[in-house]
C-alpha cells in the first residue's frame, strides 16, 4: 500500500485516493459550533484543488484520535506544503483546508474511519 504524505510526513496511514479537481471560491469554517460562526474566514481559492478521500487505519482508538488531532491541526492552521499521493503524483504549495470524517469509527481488527480532506491553492 502506497502511503500519502503531506509536508514530507506520512500523515495518513491507510488507503487514500486523490481527485485533482477545480474549485472556484471557497470558504473555510474552522470552527465546529454555530456560536463561533462569526469568526469564520472567507478564503479566496483560485485554480485547482485536490480532494483526498480514504480511510485512516490505526491499531487503536487512542492512536486514531491522536492522528486525527494532528490532521485537524494542519487543517485549522491552513498549512501549506507539498502533497504526495504515494503513487507518483504530487502537488506543491497546496493548502489543507478541511478534514471531514464519515462516521462511524469502525473497530474491527483495526480502528479506522473514512475521511475526506480538501486542499486548494490559495491566493
Amino acid at each position, binding site marked *: *500500500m502506497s502511503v500519502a504524505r503531506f509536508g514530507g510526513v506520512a500523515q495518513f496511514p491507510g*488507503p487514500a*485516493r486523490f481527485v485533482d479537481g477545480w474549485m472556484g471560491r471557497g470558504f473555510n469554517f474552522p470552527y465546529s459550533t454555530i456560536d463561533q460562526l462569526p469568526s469564520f474566514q472567507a478564503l479566496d481559492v483560485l485554480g485547482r484543488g485536490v480532494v483526498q478521500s480514504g*480511510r485512516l487505519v490505526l491499531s487503536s482508538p487512542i492512536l486514531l484520535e491522536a492522528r486525527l488531532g494532528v490532521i485537524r491541526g494542519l487543517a485549522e492552521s491552513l498549512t501549506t506544503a507539498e502533497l504526495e499521493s504515494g*503513487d507518483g503524483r504530487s502537488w506543491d504549495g497546496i493548502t489543507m483546508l478541511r478534514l471531514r470524517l464519515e462516521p462511524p469509527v*469502525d*473497530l*474491527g*481488527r483495526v480502528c479506522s474511519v473514512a475521511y475526506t480532506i480538501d486542499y486548494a491553492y490559495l491566493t
Partner: protein
Amino acid sequence: MVVLDPQQVELSGAALSGVRSITIGRTPERLLEEWQDGGPFCIFADVARLRVTVKVVRWVGASELGAAVEPGEVSTLRFSVTGDGTASQRVQVQCVCSSVTHEAGIAESSGRMPSGVVQKIELRGVSFQPDDDPVVFSNTTGV
C-alpha cells in the same frame, strides 16, 4: 462451526432432546473494503460488525406443546462436543431466539432419523459487552 450429535444440550436451562446438529456461523454485518488509485484490487478489508447465527436442528418424535424458546426470548445455549479422546469441550452461547420452524420429517433408511417433525431453532448470538464473543468454549474432562 458444525457439531453433529452434540451432547448435553440445554436451552434456557432446560435439556433439549433429539438435537441432531448445531451450527454456528459468523457473517459480516459491516464489511469494510477500500481500494486505492492505480489498480483494481482491494487493498484493505476489515469486519467491523459481526453477526453470529446459531442453528439448532432437532428431531421431535412426540407431541410438544409450546417451544423450548420463543422468538425474541433471551436464552443461553449450552452443549458439549466430544473429542476423539475422553476430553470434551463445553460450549456456551448467549443468544436471542430469532425463529422456530418445523418441517415434516422423512424417515431415513438407516433409521437414524425416523419419521417425525424436524424442528429448526435459529438464534442470534448477543454479547453483554461489544468486544466479548458470545460463543465461549471451556474444556471439560468428559461428557
